[in-house]
């Protein structure tokens, strides 16, 4: 650092390689970072900020990003859903029987988190602008080796030790590691199989009965069920089959849908 006044956060640095997976919306580090930036643009004290306006800006921002077909990380969508909920809580008066937190409380919580994040950024800046050792303050340039207590001939830190151990184990384990070959039913496969099995049957039959022969292989059970279920929903949507479940976790019955023309 040559400039003590450098604001480390003035220009968000391009994300480091290992952070990339979290940053995909214009260099923001997560939804809270984006919200804080939007809040700052209101150019008022964070305590006086309009949370409702902020929620709307965020939702609008995410909409624009999605219109441009930019991939948005799930985190941002979760925040969008939460803000939409917050917005509705702020606009609808609280019913007396309502157990859920009030919009005001949720808004205060958001404000608190924004203030806290901003405070931590500010303190990080203050720390970096302190007279730091090796930048404005110096230790003895020519230390004279003196035996203080019992000093070992060899130097190694606990960090070195742990890092070394981890590296070795990782190296060792990766050479031995062969990825598990999983059989996965594609949705298309599941759909074809299901349609073939149901055939012309207009009787209610549990899905597991249709799939009985495939479900015997333990390693495939999960994928067979999941893919078949997802495909069955699609078939229902297309009006090809009917689906029925009488109780939670009960068997799923399916049958061919009768078409209008007899």
């Amino acid at each position, binding site marked *: 650092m040559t400039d003590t006044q450098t604001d480390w956060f003035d220009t968000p640095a391009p994300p*480091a390689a290992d952070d990339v997976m979290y940053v995909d919306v214009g260099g923001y580090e*997560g939804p809270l970072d984006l919200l804080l930036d939007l809040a700052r643009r209101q150019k008022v004290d964070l305590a006086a900020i309009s949370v409702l306006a902020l929620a709307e800006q965020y939702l609008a921002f995410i909409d624009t990003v999605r219109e441009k077909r930019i991939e948005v990380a799930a985190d941002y969508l979760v925040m969008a859903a939460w803000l939409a909920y917050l917005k509705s809580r702020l606009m609808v008066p609280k019913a007396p029987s309502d157990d859920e937190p009030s919009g005001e409380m949720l808004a205060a919580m958001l404000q608190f988190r924004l203030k806290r994040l901003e405070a931590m950024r500010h303190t990080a800046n203050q720390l970096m602008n302190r007279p730091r050792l090796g930048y404005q303050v110096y230790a003895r340039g020519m230390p004279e080796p003196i035996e203080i207590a019992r000093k070992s001939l060899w130097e190694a830190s606990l960090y070195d030790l742990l890092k070394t151990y981890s590296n070795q184990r990782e190296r060792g384990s990766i050479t031995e590691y062969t990825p598990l070959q999983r059989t996965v039913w594609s949705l298309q496969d599941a759909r074809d199989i299901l349609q073939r099995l149901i055939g012309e049957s207009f009787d209610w039959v549990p899905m597991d009965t249709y799939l009985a022969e495939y479900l015997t292989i333990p390693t495939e059970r999960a994928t067979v069920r999941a893919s078949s279920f997802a495909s069955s929903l699609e078939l229902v949507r297309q009006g090809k089959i009917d689906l029925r479940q009488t109780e939670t976790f009960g068997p799923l019955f399916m049958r061919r849908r009768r078409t209008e023309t007899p």
Partner: protein
Amino acid sequence: MSEHSEVTERQLRILEALLFASAEPLAASQMATYLGEGANANELLKTLQQRYARRGVNLVRRGEKWAFRTAEDLGFLLRREEQETRPLSRAALETLSIIAYHQPATRAEIEEVRGVATGKGTIDLLMEAGWVRMRGRRRTPGRPVTYGTTDAFLDHFGLESLSDLPGLEELKGAGLLSGRLPPSMQIPLPFYGALREDEDPLDPDDTDD
């Protein structure tokens, strides 16, 4: 010169020699062995600190240790034209700040403040720099590891102790160091002691799976 002050002067000279010779801060207890019976190392160090208070080199306290460092006001003269070898990323800086002000802090707590998962390598990097260490485990389900800062952190940022962290009082006052909504009554302070009552020492066997 009285005999008493002659002894004291010699002890002060020994402390000067030890502290000047070492690049790293030294604990009073480490130096005491060189002072002879009955010497009060802490008193002597305070005397020495006063003597050097107006010099170009000051005696500073870093946690429980002491070191000679160039005076802060001369920094502009001494500044070497060297660049940070590896500037810290924003994520790392924020993480460092959160650990410093919220310690002992778990990874989940750090993530809660930042609102984003801590990328692999962030805490790792701070530990490599020698500023952050694993402290123990929080006595909560899952017994997560708690992180805190080191003496090297204090030394690097020129802090006598964690209570010197800039803006600490204001943040406390504003309730921003609390994990809960203001006005929460419970405001944790950075905790520097060995282990807090809700922390256990590190122990490899209980989370291994």
